[in-house]
């Protein structure tokens, strides 16, 4: 009972300062480790990080940032990737809330992308007002269905969903390659491994010229707000939380645990499918092999770092999008391999995951030495 009360009083705190502090510390430490790696491989860390900031914003000075950042191509890419990370991160949260880990977002994204692209090819010549809703529906249905399989296997048969979703990722990616190099291959002679390029009027208008930022960001914002609303303001969201904390208790309280769990997975997959559709209609203009560069895994990491908090994910997505897009600039300007951002990302997670354990160990040590000192003192007093 007591522990339950404690938990409640902690929840009412709006901002967990100690958590934010360790998050900040983890990021700073990870960037420091990144700097050390750069120094060790013969690069200038200061210059590289400046190049990173330049690569993410497209601005070479602070003055330029305030006057014209919204016209910069690179800044558009950063915003677009923020949207991808937010959606994939939230997709991960939907599963994690009910205690099921959807690691298969990558496969759901690929299938959503290629199916929606093919919808655009089949319905070419028709009004965008018909084609785009169709494409959205197909992408979400395909992604949702593909997440439904591991969801049902987990709920009905208790098959480990981490393994099945990862295996299904490989299956989906190979299957998409089969389609894009076989039956659905483009007839354009200049490209291989992709579907036919979509007609111009089907593609989302660009918000910043030359960048990948399109009006898809509006759709993403709507979806993100919906997910946030459902998770934190509705009974369904509360029920999901209960299931995640204690599914047996929820079951005996009369919640439809199985149905809610499977639906959480389906919606999670549908969002991933939608991200794939946005990538095709907003950025690439067709399905291409390797269309997602680990988008879902990046989102998954952001979700883990923010401990599956929706608002936190939206904010942290900005930082990691900055890092990923900036890494491209860093590679071009400073010659540091862009993969460094992935190392930094992983290190942040290691620090965050270890944070509780380390602080626990430190506390235990402090307690131990204090107890020892007190015991010694008492011993002295008694002997005197």
């Amino acid at each position, binding site marked *: 009972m007591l522990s339950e009360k404690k938990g409640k009083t902690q929840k009412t705190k709006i901002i967990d300062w100690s958590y934010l502090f360790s998050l900040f510390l983890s990021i700073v430490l990870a960037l420091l480790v990144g700097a050390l790696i750069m120094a060790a491989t013969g690069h200038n860390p200061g210059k590289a990080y400046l190049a990173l900031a330049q690569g993410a914003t497209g601005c070479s000075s602070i003055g330029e940032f305030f006057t014209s950042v919204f016209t910069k191509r690179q800044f558009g890419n950063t915003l677009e990737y923020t949207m991808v990370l937010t959606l994939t991160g939230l997709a991960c949260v939907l599963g994690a809330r009910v205690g099921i880990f959807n690691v298969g977002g990558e496969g759901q994204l690929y299938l959503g992308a290629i199916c929606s692209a093919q919808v655009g090819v089949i319905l070419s010549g028709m009004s965008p007002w018909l084609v785009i809703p169709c494409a959205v529906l197909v992408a979400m249905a395909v992604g949702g269905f593909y997440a439904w399989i591991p969801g049902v296997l987990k709920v009905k048969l208790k098959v480990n969903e981490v393994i099945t979703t990862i*295996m299904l990722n*490989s299956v989906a990616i190979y299957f998409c390659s089969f389609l894009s190099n076989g039956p659905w291959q483009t007839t354009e002679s200049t490209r291989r491994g992709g579907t036919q390029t979509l007609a111009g009027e089907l593609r989302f208008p660009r918000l910043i010229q030359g960048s990948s930022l399109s009006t898809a960001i509006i759709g993403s914002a709507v979806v993100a707000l919906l997910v946030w609303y459902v998770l934190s303001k509705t009974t369904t969201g509360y029920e999901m939380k209960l299931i995640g904390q204690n599914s047996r208790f929820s079951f005996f309280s009369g919640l439809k645990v199985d149905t809610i769990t499977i639906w959480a997975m389906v919606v999670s997959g549908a969002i991933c499918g939608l991200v794939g559709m946005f990538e095709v209609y907003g950025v690439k203009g067709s399905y291409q092999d390797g269309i997602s560069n680990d988008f879902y*895994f990046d989102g998954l990491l952001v979700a883990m770092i923010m401990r599956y908090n929706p608002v936190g994910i939206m904010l942290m997505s900005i930082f990691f999008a900055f890092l990923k897009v900036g890494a491209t600039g860093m590679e071009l300007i400073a010659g540091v391999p862009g993969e460094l951002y992935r190392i930094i990302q992983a290190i942040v997670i290691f620090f965050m*995951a270890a944070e509780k*354990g380390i602080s626990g160990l430190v506390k235990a040590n402090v307690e131990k030495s204090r107890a020892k000192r007190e015991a010694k003192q008492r011993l002295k007093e008694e002997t005197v």
Partner: protein
Amino acid sequence: MNIFSAGLFKQMLRSATPVALAAMGGLMTEHAGIMNIGMDGMILIGAFVAVSFSYFTGSAAIGVLAAVLVGVLIGLFFALFVVKFKSDEFIIGTALNILAGGATVFLLRAIFNVKGTFQGTADRPLSGLPLINSSFIGNIPVIGGIINGNSLFVYLTWLFVPLVWVFLYRTPYGFWIRAAGENPGALRTAGISPEKMKWISSILCGAFCGFAGAHLSLGNVTMFSEGMSNNRGFIAFACVIFGGANPLKVYLAALIFGFFDALGYRLQEYRISPYLTSMIPYVITVVMMVYVVVRQQRRRIAQKAGE
């Protein structure tokens, strides 16, 4: 052209070996009660270390040794977080996989200045592991053609599987490792630290994944390519579950995977798209996972009915 030729079974052994080696490590951590999904990253790092040391020293043996040593270090690193800091195993495993993917690509660029794959340079080609050819083995009727002329690791695996079995079921350390997962409280009462057993199992897992990675990059082929572990760590995990963490059954599971992987290669000769045939082992892994769970449940129900 017969699809079930000796070549198919040879390919089966080749494909099964890295998975089986990693799975030998995975069943250690499984017994110790750690859900280790970081094996994929461990294999990838092992493959990279093996190739780079083989390149710089010119000796494949040193490459293998380095891969195993680095595997031990990664096992220590993994245990530091999972056992000492009590972090979430799922998060640490995922982070390890991501770190391995990023670090190997980064180092490939930083050290060898190439993207994608590294096969050594023109003046210094990579030295791979030798194939074992013996006329004595080759003359054994029926299976001689299959088991002769494989990479060294195929035979090493046959040595490791029974050794791991003996270690787990016939030595005190094996007993303690199993107890650390099944009943840590009882183990602690007996005066043995379950945490220590978890450390040992993680280290062994890292070493085996190092072997698996070395075989992948110096035995199967002689090169390193980005993400070449290709989810084999997860397949190894599935094999561990399929085989109930019993080394012999786990090796059998790895052979099933190897068989379907090899079958996929063969089917390409029948003009089936390589993309479709590449799907086969992953689909089979899902089927294997479902099969083993359903069988367990049936048995449980039968037991209940028997009572």
